[in-house]
């Protein structure tokens, strides 16, 4: 077994988990909303790209570019007409509503596309690889990781260097005072969820091209996303990437030792990180 190769594959897999988690992290950081349907929304976006590729014969990356604004709109509408009504001092309503949405999405997709597992075809990219010294690295995993880096850099720029980002942070701190500044918290939240769903479309492309998916796999992706966010430290996007990498490396090492241990090793790493760093690897200073 080649340990360097295993760790490298794990790091690249971490990029995928960071993509799953980035939207979740953004939404939680801004409105303290835990979206239990996040994984199912990734699967929904994967079906959307699958249909665009299948019916229009589009390149998967072009299909993703079309899916991003559609997912933005879905996120905007969900936040405006559903999630905003659940936000308040009580944390239970948003959990119940997003849990319900998760059930609806899974069964709706099952009804529409059956339980058959699907895959978004990506042509020669499926098997393409590049040589790095003595190692061969898949082009798709490299693209996944590069996309995760790009998404996190862009989201950080958005949060810390734009007027919209200032409004996100101000609303997160104190929605009433933000209102006095002319910020409409509910509109701000709708934009934030829209952006999170656009990121979900990117995650869905790599989910759907790298492995099979069916309507029921959303909750497992949600778990990986959750573990990445929490290991990284709530509200820190770079932390989310670090958390994703820890999870990815733990899974590939576990899988290399014994394939039965792959998933379990990820969860054990999660527990260990929380045991020694209860607030995550990079907790936000202000909370």
């Amino acid at each position: 077994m080649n340990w360097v190769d295993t760790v490298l594959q794990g790091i690249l897999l971490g990029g995928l988990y960071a993509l799953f988690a980035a939207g979740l992290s953004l939404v939680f950081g801004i409105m303290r909303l835990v979206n239990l349907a996040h994984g199912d929304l990734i699967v929904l976006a994967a079906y959307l790209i699958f249909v665009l590729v299948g019916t229009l014969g589009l390149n998967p990356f072009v299909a993703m570019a079309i899916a991003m604004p559609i997912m933005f709109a879905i996120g905007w509408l969900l936040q405006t007409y559903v999630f905003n009504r659940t936000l308040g001092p009580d944390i239970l309503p948003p959990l119940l509503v997003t849990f319900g949405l998760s059930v609806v999405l899974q069964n709706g997709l099952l009804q529409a596309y059956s339980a058959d597992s699907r895959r978004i075809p990506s042509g020669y990219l499926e098997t393409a690889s590049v040589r790095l010294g003595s190692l061969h690295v898949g082009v798709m995993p490299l693209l996944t990781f590069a996309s995760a880096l790009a998404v996190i850099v862009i989201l950080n720029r958005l949060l810390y260097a734009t007027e919209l980002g200032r409004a996100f942070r101000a609303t997160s701190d104190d929605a009433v005072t933000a209102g006095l500044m002319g910020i409409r918290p509910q509109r701000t939240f709708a934009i934030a969820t829209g952006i999170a769903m656009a990121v979900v479309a990117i995650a869905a492309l790599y989910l759907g091209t790298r492995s099979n998916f069916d309507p029921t796999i959303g909750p497992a992706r949600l778990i990986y996303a959750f573990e990445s966010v929490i290991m990284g430290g709530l509200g820190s996007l770079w932390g989310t990437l670090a958390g994703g990498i820890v999870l990815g490396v733990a899974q590939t090492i576990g899988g290399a030792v014994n394939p039965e241990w792959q998933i379990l090793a990820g969860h054990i790493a999660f527990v260990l990180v929380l045991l020694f760093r209860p607030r995550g690897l990079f907790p936000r200073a202000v909370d």
Partner: protein
Amino acid sequence: MALLQTNGLTAFYRDFQALFGVDLWLDAGETVAIVGANGAGKSTLMRSVSGVLRNKPEQIVFDGRPIGALAAPEVMALGIAMVPEGRKLFPSLTVEENLLIGRYGRSTNGPWSLETIYQLFPVLKERRNNPGTALSGGQQQMVSIGRALMSNPHVLLCDELSLGLAPVIIKDIYAAFPAIRESGASIVIVEQDIGQAMKVADRLYCMMEGRVTLSGRPMELKREAIHAAYFGADS
């Protein structure tokens, strides 16, 4: 006609009534102080005018428009900015970002910009990259005032500027008010500190238990009358 006026303003927190028909007005260019003890309804009045609390539309009139039922962002858009009680800076934003958020989503032409606010409160320029909440109480109050001014408001509402600050700091903060008046803003100052309020105000309202109990020009009001209106002591 007055720039800002309340007509029999009532306000409730669920079943609890906090204001019982408050009538007051603010003319353009004027500074008005509202004094009263804790629980007199001063902050409720500010929260009603700024749109944090909703009221009946015609109970608050700004520039001939009923605004009682508008939400805070809409009131802000009309040019009424608030310095909230307790300063309420955004902890995740730096001093400069706190100031910038004051003009969120609008481009305003007027005297107030980052540069003029740093001229008004030079200490803020040195600390522009610190988190807003890392500053002393007085400096935080300066940021909060600057943040409200950034929108170049027609009306500046100041809720309890002196709360929790040392007298020497309070003096520093009130020293900025002549410049703010000169910029053309009309000002409403809510205070528990009667002495400070009488120094800066053209007119004074005294509130007690949700009602206006006394009003007039500071020079014309007798000390005993204010005490009676403030504490409700008829002795």
